[in-house]
């Protein structure tokens, strides 16, 4: 039974058509592409940073960079993979830049919460059983990205490998590692 795909809900043809347009500098095609992928990219970045403002800024940057690289876009490769790769790199750079004050990869949740003043987001936080998302912030960057893409963005291991530029076996190892670490941390939380 095929699971519905988040990225590919439009047929490949529609995305390819947009990408062909983008390569020739067609802004209308790029606009269409943006409206299709913006929610996925924002959510991806938000899940990694857990900061609404940063996620919003980086989403914007990701699309601008995608546009700037339009002439180098590979028609045969997956544009989604390329877009997510840009997004991930931006998140890593941002974390690096902020390191003295906030280390996103290892900061306890209290530190990250300071940045989320959006009441809607607070509401969503309360609603969700989101210890898992908290626990995610403690994972090493690679396993976090691999897990998030697999769990929330419907990517297959092959697609994750293409997105992260790592081997299929490494993707599997990172997903396994994420689950092991999450299990350990959640068991600690439940016990506390």
């Amino acid at each position: 039974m095929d699971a519905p795909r988040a990225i590919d809900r439009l047929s490949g043809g529609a995305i390819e058509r947009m990408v062909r347009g983008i390569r020739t500098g067609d802004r209308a095609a790029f606009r269409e592409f943006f409206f299709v992928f913006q929610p996925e990219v924002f959510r991806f970045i938000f899940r990694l940073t857990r900061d609404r403002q940063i996620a919003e800024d980086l989403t914007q940057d990701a699309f601008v960079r995608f546009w700037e690289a339009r002439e180098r876009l590979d028609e045969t490769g997956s544009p989604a993979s390329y877009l997510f790769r840009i997004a991930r790199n931006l998140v890593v750079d941002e974390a690096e830049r902020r390191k003295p004050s906030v280390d996103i990869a290892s900061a306890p949740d209290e530190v990250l919460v300071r940045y989320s003043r959006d009441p809607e987001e607070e509401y969503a936080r309360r609603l969700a059983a989101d210890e898992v998302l908290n626990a995610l912030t403690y994972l090493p960057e690679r396993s976090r990205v691999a897990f998030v893409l697999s769990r929330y963005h419907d990517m297959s291991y092959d697609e994750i490998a293409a997105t992260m530029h790592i081997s299929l076996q490494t993707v599997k190892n990172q997903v396994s590692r994420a689950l092991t670490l999450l299990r350990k941390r959640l068991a600690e939380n439940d016990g506390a």
Partner: protein
Amino acid sequence: MSYLPRMIDASFMVKVLRGHAAQEEREFLDAWLKESDAHREEFAAVVEIWERAGRAGSPGVPDPSKQWARIEAAIGSRVEMSGPVHMDHPPVRMTDQRRRPMRMMRTIGAGALLLIAMAGLTTGIFWMAGRNHPQPTASEHRDRGIGSELEYATANGRRAMIPLPDGTVVHLNAASRLTVDPAFGGAERRVTLEGEAYFAVASDPARPFRVYTGASFTEVRGTEFGVRYRRDKIDVVVSRGKVRFVSRSKGGSVDLERGEGVTATSAGELSRPHRVDLHVSLAWRENRLAFKKTPLEDVMTEIEEVYDVHVEFRNTAARSRTLTGTFSVDAIDVVLSQIALAMDVSIDRNGRTVVVR
């Protein structure tokens, strides 16, 4: 591609859970599970974390129109749409086949394909032309909208994401049909829904976005909400902004805000607005199935729609038992076994046939 690993790790279990595994791989896991309690416990722990992670909410997304405006500024705005535009000679760039927006889309006439394909480029023009011609003649008809009716339909087990020319994005759930009115983008942005969809509506205060369902419609200006119109019952839930629900036949209306919902019959009888659990109502968007005191009969109807299976009830007494819980959509056998356990029935699947005993 299927290949069997030397040992089973969490990533292999996840692959099976997500329905990405081949028959051979599923059997390999089954055999491994039969080997020992320890193996079964390990699998249960992975399933638990996977499911638990799936229950975490999906963050709300910033208004795409506003964000697009900033991106456009960042990439340097070149005015591509200035100057006179002759709609009689639209700049057709591709053939209709290649521009087909979706595999499962059915269109009324080939001209519609060309027009919708161009809509992204010429949206602004349509609007302006619409204002210049308040009383359009038949030949000017398409200046006021997308030109001809477009219909998008999803079969059981399928879903679609449909970008509309105004920037609105519609997520169409399984077994649903969305019709975009030929005059979409004229005075109103009108679509008709049968089934279930989630709308992230691009903001445009001048042109209300209306979803017609039976004898009522839901009107918004720029917001996010879900509409479900199945089996003569309409449910509307709002996850962002404000929405007005109007009964055309009875003339009543209700205003809804975030976290509120209303139920109506297809004849237009309205309920009072009530609080809704967005995690339950919009679970399908997150690839989840969520039920709250839902009769098993309705649960199985949803299973039919989502997985494209046929359900037979051999246990009539169980039909009215109610279920509360959340399941991940991507693992039908896991979902069925969990439902069976919770409902104290036995559920067997043989291909596309599911039997409840």
